[in-house]
């Protein structure tokens, strides 16, 4: 038996300093959000009440949430069959798909939006001017890296060939196999990718603002610039959304590797 070692003094110092750096802005934002909008005195919940009674808060959060669900649905529908097929039939195409899934890291949102606006400017209003059209279609690309690598890991841990053969020898069609056999087996991976996508879409600002859509984070920026103290309240609410998505991700991924992410910055 090894003797229990005490925590090293230098570890205490580093962890303490780090925690202070990470917690102080959150605490300060909380105190800030409790100030009176006129007198700047503590403490009132009026700023939260202001946000919760603002119809724009509800309409933008609803819009962003629906766009997020749509993005997740398209990404899952596009990537699950693709990754399945690559693992089952065309493993030699895997490097190509992995490469394409990584491209959004090099063609960052601020680069992508320049090309996107130029390419799609002339397309019909019902697509280009609609968050449920253009914006959701673009967010699918931002979700590629997260969903792809989550699914790729998921598919590597199951025996795709045996599952497929077993299903088909019992008479199942391709859609049935995919829906009833494969999907339940990679549910955790698909859910992990979905929650990451949710967090990314709810916080995405670059493309939404430059393409002139009024999403949740564009609303947050509007409050930041125009309402000093309610801005503290909306900031904490936005942080709460990120927390909720990431905790849900951890809950579905219990035992899996911690997520390494690179979201909107």
């Amino acid at each position: 038996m090894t003797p229990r070692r005490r925590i090293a003094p230098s570890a205490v110092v580093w962890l303490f300093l780090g925690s202070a750096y990470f917690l102080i802005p959150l605490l300060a934002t909380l105190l800030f959000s409790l100030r009176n909008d006129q007198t700047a005195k503590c403490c009132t919940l009026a700023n939260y009440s202001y946000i919760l009674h603002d119809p724009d808060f509800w309409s933008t959060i609803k819009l962003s949430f629906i766009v997020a669900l749509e993005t997740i649905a398209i990404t899952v529908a596009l990537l699950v069959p693709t990754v399945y097929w690559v693992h089952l039939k065309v493993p030699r195409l895997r490097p190509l798909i992995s490469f394409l899934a990584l491209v959004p890291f090099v063609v960052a949102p601020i680069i992508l939006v320049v090309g996107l606006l130029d390419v799609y400017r002339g397309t019909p209003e019902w697509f280009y001017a609609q968050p449920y059209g253009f914006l959701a279609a673009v967010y699918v690309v931002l979700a590629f890296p997260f969903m792809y690598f989550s699914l790729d890991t998921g598919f590597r841990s199951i025996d795709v060939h045996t599952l497929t053969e077993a299903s088909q020898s019992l008479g199942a069609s391709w859609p049935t196999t995919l829906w009833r056999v494969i999907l339940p087996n990679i549910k955790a991976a698909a859910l992990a990718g979905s929650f990451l996508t949710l967090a990314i879409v709810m916080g995405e600002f670059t493309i939404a603002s430059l393409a002139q859509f009024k999403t949740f984070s564009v609303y947050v920026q509007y409050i930041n610039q125009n309402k000093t103290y309610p801005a503290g309240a909306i900031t904490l609410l936005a942080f709460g959304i990120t927390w909720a998505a990431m905790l849900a991700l951890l809950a579905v991924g219990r035992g899996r590797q911690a997520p390494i992410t690179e979201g909107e910055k």
Partner: protein
Amino acid sequence: MSLAWLGVVPFLAYATAFLLLPAANVLIGAFQSNEGGYTLDNVRTLFDEPYRTAFKNSIEVSLVTALLGGIIGLLMAYSAIREGTPRWIRGGLTTFSGVAANFAGIPLAFAFIATFGILGVGTQAMTAVGFNPYDHGFSLFTKTGIEIVYLYFQIPLMILVIAPAIDGLRREWREAASSLGASSWQFWRHIGVPILLPSLLSAMVLLFGNAFAAYATAYGLTSGGVGLVPIQIGFFLSGDVFDNPHLGQALAFGMFVVLGLMMLAYIPLQRISSRWMK
């Protein structure tokens, strides 16, 4: 020749429409003139002001936050993982890092405004004890301010990326070294650092790209007051600058080149560092 490759056509078509086509638009547009011909003038303009300074600022902010974020993140991750630290600390740090690495953009910028802005809680607390940082040359709305704020997502990303590499430093190696009479310093000098180095470098390259591509945080903090390349691109797209639309594409092309070089450095480093992780 089997037709199995047809199964990936939907994905390839989608990636072409919304990823490759816009990327190609930027790459080609950067070399087009307003009259329709091809030219190097747009790319040449990147070396004139204010774009030269924007690239300099962006690279500087990315280098500083990659280095500082990398070192602080490594020290925090090592402190949480090393023997003697209670296990729950590591779990807590990993969970928090997962959230903080994603808590960026507009809300992050405001959290720091509420803390160290002119009306911020932290600024007022410091003023109350007789030290107003704004009287001593500090401002959150400068390059230094941006660097302080970027570290909020850089350090957590470092912790998440470097933790598996630290796990790869097996305890037996440390025990073997000390039983052969090596001091702690000798262990790090000859074993620990050389093994961690490729992982460290590849993580820092990733952090560099992470900061370089960031737009929302800098915009939320300064509303474009500090010239970074993404901010300049934002000016173009929101119509503040009208003269030459191809210049926006040239700026995006310049970012693409820097991020592409980053990827070229990242991939081989990643390959070397994964050797030690099994």
